[in-house]
Structures are given as C-alpha cells and as structure tokens.
C-alpha cells in the first residue's frame, strides 16, 4: 500500500510533469519569436555593418546615415508627428473615456461607433480622409457652398504641406476610440468609492479628477502610450499615403525598394531600420517601466 508520503511525492512529480508538458507550447511559441523576429532583427543588424559587397565597414553606415540630410529631416519629422499625435490622442482619449464612463441614453450606440472606428483598416482611413478633407474634397466643397470659402485654393492643403497635419489628423481619428475604450475598461474596473467620498467631503470635480481618477489611470495611460508610440513611430501606410515628406520608415523602405543594391543608400535602409528599432525599444522600455511602477504604486 502506498504511504501518504509516496502519494504526495507522486502528486508533486505529476505536477512537475504537467508543468513540463504545458511548457512545450510556450517553448514552440518562443521559438517562432526567435526564428521569425529576433533572427531577422539580427540579420538586419549584421547587414548594417557591411557594404553590399560583404565588406565589413564597422559604424561607417551609421555615421553616413546620421550625417545625411534626408535622415535628419525624417527623424525630426517623425518625432514631431509622433509626439503631437500621442499627446493629442492621450488627452482626447482620457476626456472621452471620462465622458462615456457613466450610463447615458445612446451609450450602446456610442460604444458601437467607437468599435466601428477601431475596425477600420489604416488604408481605408487614409482614403476616406483624402476624399473628405483634401482641398477638392467634401469639407472644402461644404465650406464653399456655405460661403466660407471663395474657391478651393483657400482651403488649407493639409496633405501636401510639410507639417504632416493630414497624417496627424488621421492617426488621431484612428487611435482615440481605441485608447478611449481601453481606458474606459480600466475606469469601469475602478471602484467609485473614493471619488464619492471625496465628493461628499466637498472636493471639486477638477480636483477629484487630478488627485483620484488620473493617478489610477497612470499605469494604463503609460501602457497604451507604448502601443500607440510603437504603431505611430513605425507606421508606413499613413505617412506614405497622406504626407509629402519621408518619415524614418518610409525613407528606409524607399532606400530598400527604390535604390540600386550597390548604392550606399541601400545599406542605409538597414541602418535606419536598426536606429528605428533602438529608439522604439528605449522609449517603449521607459514607458513600460513607468507603467509597471505606476501599477505597483497604485496597488
């Protein structure tokens, strides 16, 4: 007859075996990430140190890239678009999430419209914005018919200008509902007790928001900022369709696709992609760390 100790031993070893078996899918998934993500990144890193002919040049490609005017302009332009977009998205999303937090007539419809927006592919959004917001688009025509404009040339050309307003507008249109829905889910999971207590003690709405609600959203804001940053900074379709200037991604792809392989610009496509990767990793890492820290403080 087995003793209770041996039974316990069997249970522990069963648990270990089960844990090992359950680990297999995790290992397979990790292998896929290694082969199809880390390895390609490694290949790009390696290529960024060589000429097309296979000659090792150290950091020469990077120095050449940093010194080139198109890269410098693309870096400034990309940073500007990303920072402005994220600030506008985050502020608008918090305001929207707060507005739709409580129950109201038409809440279901509002939530559906927000989900509808989330489901729109980026290329579709680009096409729609061009049709509606371009100089000869519907909005311009509407203003003309209302007598606000005398002719279409008076309407600001947001897609051809060097400021990237068209790109920012479309990014904001696409991301605000997504981030607002994510923040709304967090707001629903937070108890209203503290806010109600503060209200009964006579604390004003603005103070309640800044001292109670916003701190509880900090972690989620930082986390969603990571996703937002990664998407906006690494976006290809929107800047290439709606902007007149190169972002880092479109410049890298232009060098990769449209230049002869023996030209130095071709190898610069790899260095630009690695610079993009480093910037994204550092910023995402800082935001993730902040998100974790905020989450812990909250707990």
């Amino acid at each position, binding site marked *: 007859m087995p003793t209770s100790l041996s039974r316990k031993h069997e249970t522990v070893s069963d648990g270990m075996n089960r844990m090992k078996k359950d680990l297999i899918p995790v290992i397979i998934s990790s292998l896929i990430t290694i082969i199809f*993500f880390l390895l390609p990144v490694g290949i790009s890193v390696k290529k960024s140190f060589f000429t097309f002919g296979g000659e090792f040049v150290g950091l020469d490609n990077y120095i050449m890239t940093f010194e080139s005017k198109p890269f410098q302009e693309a870096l400034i332009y990309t940073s500007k678009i990303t920072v402005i977009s994220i600030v506008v998205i985050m502020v608008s999303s918090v305001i929207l999430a707060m507005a739709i937090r409580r129950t109201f007539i038409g809440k279901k419809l509002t939530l559906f419209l927000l989900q509808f927006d989330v489901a729109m592919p980026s290329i*579709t959004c680009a096409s729609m914005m061009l*049709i509606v917001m371009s100089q000869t688009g519907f909005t311009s025509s509407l203003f003309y018919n209302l007598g606000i404009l005398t002719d279409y040339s008076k309407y600001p050309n947001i897609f051809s200008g060097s400021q990237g307003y068209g790109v920012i507008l479309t990014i904001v249109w696409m991301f605000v509902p997504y981030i607002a829905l994510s923040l709304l889910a967090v707001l629903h999971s937070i108890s209203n007790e503290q806010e109600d207590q503060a209200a009964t003690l006579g604390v004003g709405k603005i103070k309640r928001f800044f001292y109670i609600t916003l701190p509880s959203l900090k972690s989620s804001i930082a986390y969603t900022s990571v996703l937002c940053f990664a998407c906006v900074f690494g976006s290809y379709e929107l800047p290439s369709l709606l902007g007149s200037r190169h972002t880092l991604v479109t410049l890298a792809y232009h060098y990769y696709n449209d230049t002869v392989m023996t030209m130095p610009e071709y190898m610069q496509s790899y260095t630009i992609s690695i610079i993009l990767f480093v910037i994204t990793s550092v910023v995402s890492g800082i935001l993730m760390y902040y998100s974790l820290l905020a989450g812990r403080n909250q707990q």
Partner: protein
Amino acid sequence: MKGNPIRTVIIMFTILVIVYPLIPLFIQSLAGNWAYEDLFPDSLSFDNYAEIIDVYNIPKVILNSIILSSAVVLVSLVIALLPAKFIGTRNFKGKAAVQVFTMMPVMAPAIVVLFGIGRVFATMGVYRTYLSLVLAEVVFLIPYMIMVLVPVFRNYDPGIEDQAATLGLGKLSILMNVTLPSIRSGLAVSCMYVFIASWATYLAVSMYAPINFETMGLIMYPAIRFGQVPQGLLSALTIIFFIPSLLFLFISTWIMGTDKVNNQKV
C-alpha cells in the same frame, strides 16, 4: 445624457467626428458626377461598384483576403492559445519576462523584421510563398492574441478540464468542448483583432506575397498613392475594403453578446 452639458457636447462631438467622414464617402461611392460647386451629386447609382468589381476582379481578391486573414487567425490561435493559457493560469518565476518577450514583436517597427525575414524565408526555401506570407503576418499578430487571451485565462478554472478527463474525455475533446467554449468571448475578441489587423496589412503582403496574389490592401494602396483612380471609384473601393472587417466586428460582438446573455441566465 441629462445634467452635464459638457459631457453631452463631448459625446455629440465624438459621434459627429466619427460619422462625418463616412457620410460623404458613401455618397461619393454612389455619385456619378459630383462637381466641387455642388453640395450633392446629380444622380446616385451603383455604377462605381459595378465598375470596380469588374476592373479589379474584386470577388477573387476578397476571397484571397478572406482566406489569408482566416489562415492567419487560425495559425495565430493554434500557436498562441496554450502559451496564453499557461501564462494566464500559472504563477511562475520569470512570468513578467516571458510576457515582455512575447510582446516584443508588437513594440518593434515591422520594417526592421521585414527587411531581415526575407533571408530566413530564402534559407527555408519558402520565399514569396503562401507560407512566407502567413508567417510574416503571424509573427506580429501572435502577441495580440496572447495579450487578449492571458487576462481571459486569469478567470479560467483549469480544474474543469480535470473533471472532464475523469469523465473519459480525450485531450482534443476537452479542448473543443470545455476549454474553447469557456473562453468564447475572449476568443471572439482576439480573433477579431487578428482578423482586422491581418485584413489591413499592406507592407508584409507587398514584400512576401506570391507573385500575382492580390489582396484588397495591395489594390487599395497604389490606387490611393498614385491618385489615378477617380474619387467615385476610390470611395467604392474603400467601402468594399472595410465591409468584411466590419462584418467580422458584428459577428464577434454578437458572440460576446450571446455569451453575456448565457452567463446571466446561468
């Protein structure tokens, strides 16, 4: 919306901002001739749709896109389901590190991976094949699947699988009849995300799709980029492009809705 006028204004403004671009898009897609000076077109018809369907061989392209996105959803699900369950239901040392590792492809700009992945595909002998296309998308979408499923599995009791096993059910049977139905809503959301993301993918498809394999994204991008397609046709193409992803949204929302009702009944 009684009581707070600021909130009412914010909600109304949001609805207006979301709906506003859609209305002219729909009208434009039905418009024959719509001059700048006119607020409305002279006539409405489905001619643009008929022309676009004919010129771009839309049924075949949509079928290609549906097959590709469905394959991506299926492969992502097969790869991500059990790791998500493991992370969601167990506490172990290094759990945070595993989660960060699985999330890495989402954080990185796609272009970094896409430049290097060609060499991997060439080594494997699958460059510009259906497999390379699916893999080039799946690597970015597995993290989304895991990200949505992990919180779902946190509320999942693995004990019910043991109970099913004692009743004589096999592993596959447990998966199909116990595990998947228990996480139906989460599954619907994660599949919806992956389907929509795959449907919208352009860069990976343009770089690794087999020659002559066309998806909606591949047609749409040059149509917008080079501006040679008239606005009426472009509007029709845009609407045709986003309708399937909206249908998928409806289906997954419906699944979540019925799940909620069933849970309330229980």
